[in-house]
């Protein structure tokens, strides 16, 4: 079967142990304000335009039959409301300024692609990570890819927001070595304010993963004004220590690097301007949180 993915990134070192390749799948149930992969929110192809790479050749205007490209006063602009994501303009753009996120790929060819760096996985204890978006929205597809990878002895990880039906988990559990789950807030209302949905299903899925003894690493993006104070984070830590199957809890500082991506796909960036927590603050949080949960880590700590 086929899946819809936006990218495959080799040499990824922050999505599980060792040197990995990460596949980004499209579609996500949540709408976190700080999301840094907005091109992956919908299960559909998305046009992206990076003005600084554009040389103004105008080839896209000719290629587009929907009037989505506008050249005014020598400046190229995209009217995203007219774009149907057909990709006709992208194949005429040689600069890399126009890009279509969304590749339909057969599971078997996806697996081939993911095996290219197997030497690095073997040397480093790395493997393949499925991320997104929410990879479990395409659980049947990634299950097929994973079956192939497991036959080759490759370590697999699924990076999930956990807000999916339990059945999706059931499909991939036999082939998953590690789940990377996001827990962002314990208070469901606060969770809804910032992500668009409550956290009931997430917490329930986390308990179920604990019940079956799945290996889970938890990640919490530390967002100023949302969950960056000790009491909120301690609540998460308290919840995690009750589970018993959490191998590590990584707290990751919020960053605003996704902002340019919003502009390039014509989406408004709703996140207010915030200062990213500095490394000193993160170190201090880590130290304090050790009192609640002993395996708190920062992004590049070894688990």
């Amino acid at each position, binding site marked *: 079967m086929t899946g819809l993915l936006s990218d495959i*990134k*080799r040499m990824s*070192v922050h999505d599980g142990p060792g040197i990995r390749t990460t596949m980004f799948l499209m579609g996500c149930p949540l709408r976190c304000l700080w999301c840094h992969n907005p091109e992956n929110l919908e299960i559909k192809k998305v046009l992206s335009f990076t003005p600084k790479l554009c040389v103004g050749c105008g080839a896209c205007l000719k290629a587009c039959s929907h009037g989505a490209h506008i050249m005014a006063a020598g400046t190229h602009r995209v009217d995203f409301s007219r774009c149907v994501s057909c990709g006709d303009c992208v194949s005429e753009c*040689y600069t890399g300024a126009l890009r279509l996120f969304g590749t339909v790929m057969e599971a078997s060819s996806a697996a081939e692609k993911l095996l290219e760096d197997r*030497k*690095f996985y073997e040397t*480093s204890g790395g493997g393949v990570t499925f991320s997104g978006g929410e990879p479990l929205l395409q659980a049947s597809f990634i299950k097929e890819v994973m079956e192939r990878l497991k036959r080759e002895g490759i370590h697999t990880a699924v990076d999930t927001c956990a807000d999916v039906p339990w059945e999706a988990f059931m499909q991939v559990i036999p082939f998953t070595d590690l789940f990377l789950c996001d827990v962002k807030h314990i208070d469901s209302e606060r969770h809804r304010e910032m992500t668009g949905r409550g956290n009931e299903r997430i917490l329930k899925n986390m308990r179920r993963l604990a019940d079956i003894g799945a290996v889970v690493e938890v990640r919490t993006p530390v967002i100023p004004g949302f969950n960056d104070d000790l009491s909120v984070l301690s609540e998460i830590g308290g919840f995690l220590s009750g589970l018993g199957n959490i191998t590590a809890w990584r707290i990751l500082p919020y960053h605003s690097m996704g902002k340019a991506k919003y502009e390039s796909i014509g989406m408004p960036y709703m996140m207010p301007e915030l200062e990213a927590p500095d490394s000193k603050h993160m170190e201090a949080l880590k130290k304090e949180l050790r009192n609640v949960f002993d395996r708190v880590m920062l992004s590049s700590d*070894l688990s």
Partner: protein
Amino acid sequence: MDKRSFTASGPVFAEVKDHLFTQYSEPHYDDSTGISREELIKGVDRILEEKKDTPPIKRKAELFSYVLMNSRIDVDPTDWFADHFDRAGDILYKLHERRRAEAGDTVIPGAKAIIELGRETGSFFAELDLGHVSPGWRFLLEKGIPGIMDMAQKKLKDCADERSALFYQSVITVYEAAALFIKRLEEQAKRMAEKYPEHQDRMKKLSDCLYSIRTGPPGTFYEALQLSYIFHQLIEFEGELVRSMGSFEWNFGRFYEKDLAEGRITREDARELISFFWMKFFANTRGSGNGKNFYFGGMKDSSTINIGPLSYLALELFYDLNQPDPKLSVKLGKDTPEEFRRLIARCLKGGRTNMVLINDDETLSAVRKRGVSFEDSFEYLLIGCYEPAIEGKETACNMCVKFNLAKPLELALFNGTDPLTGKATGIRTGTPDSFDTFEDFYHAYEVQLDHQLSLVQKAITDYESFWDVINPEPFISATFAPCLEKGRDISEYGPKYNNTGSMGGGLANAADSLISIKKAVFEEKRYTLEELCRMLKDDFAGQERERLYLKNMMPKWGNDDFEADAMAVRVAESYTSRVNGRKNGRGGIFTASMFTLDHCFELGHRTGALPDGREKGHYLAKGIGAMTGMDKGGVTAQIESVVKLDFTDIPNGSVLDIYLHPSAVDGEKGTDTLLQLIDTYFGSGGYGIQFNILNADDLREAQIHPEEYRTLQVRVCGWNVYFVTLNPEQQNHFIETTMQLV
């Protein structure tokens, strides 16, 4: 004896560091110790005139001796080491250059013309590279000056042929001069002890040390360092650069361990001495030159690891000093201890990237394949940057030829005429419309490649036969056991191995251009070869869209792309098979290397627009990997591509430049990641690898506020410099390379 010998009294390194940093840039000599520079130069000219008919080696020895006897000297009372003398503006080096020019003008004008045309058209830069030689350090440290003199005297007594006699006489002359020069330093140190009572202890120890090394082989760590440095200076004075300081461990480890065991020094003492010693090298380049290397790691024989307590101490200090010079070459093999590897990773992550890592197992195979014996192979050191040569047994002359692999492509496209200069330097392989298939075109590429290589090899071979006239070097030659044994100077092929290096640069540009021609012209038929030639001739004027098509839509070497990689492997084989094993002019062979150094700029300036989408005059690819900015598949893909090359066919060395964003190697996990990348590269048969761990934003900031980034090091090629000392083109090259890193 006081156990803390070198940290007991007087200024410590930190206190005199800034002062010592100026020792070569602002030299001062004691006028009472010798004659003025004007008189010295007059004296040299007088000898040259009077000894016009004396054999060149003998005359050279007399000149060497004259300057060492008569020049003004200096001993700094705060320094632990003495070496300063007035080199009369490097007069012997200039003489060597003059002799080389004379040879070209008179006896081998044909060779000179070939080399000049090569430079003008950017086909190759070539010269008689008499440097890129390493002294036989361990032989020297074992025998010492008197030992070498004894051997020369004994050999002289028994020798029948005149040539050998001349060699031994010259060796005796220069070694006597060296011993007397050291005696002059020793006496000056004694005077300094009197003049500066506060430095009496230091000057007393220094004069004792100098006495020891002129009367016997070095017996202590301090003496071994002092002797090595004096030789470094005197060899360079003799007329060529010292390109490797040898193995820090193998040269000095035994002295250090003996001193420690016998209570002569402490670990702190040794740290202090190495700091002063290494400052000599740093003060020479001041962070803007190509530096001197020591190598670390490797094996002494098939079962003995060349890593001991001194290596750990030195690497720790290397980190703390954070100087771009000396630079390191690190041999990593399957038996290298993890602790040692982690120290190396720590240096790289901490911005101490002034090192190249060499795959020891692959290099041993490569040097054996080119004819080095099993026993000798372990003694290879890295000459200059990454070029292996056998210590004290080989003159590898690694940089005779710097060849542009993209030029034969231009010659094939333009029927033998260089498009930029209009010079008909190639073969008439046919007009663009005469090629029916890509294979026809590739054949033309090989014909041009072969022709250019044959030309330059002939020119170098001609020059090589005049080396003994141009620059006989009895002083360095006597550190080569085979020279001393045979009675032949290194310029007379005295060493056991006498090879000539040939560097191929711009592999990515040649391969990427060929693949563009194959696909866009012969497969897609997007344009004819004539149309493509026209675009190139016009430097893509009015054709920016097509340039971007060629640049961004065609496969590129270094991205784990099957087709592009196969092309690069083919180009590499076409090149190495026309270099390796071809006879040079000294009884040895040419050996191939593949990298570019900073010649990527100068060769690029002389290369027109290429079918890979590169514009006219733009720099070529650096190193063996992807063209700058075209490694879009990332680090692992680039490594997967490059290991498809057979490095045993590139025995004169190569290097893969890896650029990483600091976040990729952050923290403890980052240390592992770095080592795993190296392990995978080496495990798959890679050769040399070096790193820049940089953030483009920092580099842009450094361009705007250089004063805040004075100590930011970048690895240029086989050496590091301070980023702020680079010209804007070179600075932008680094920014362009690091921009796409996330």
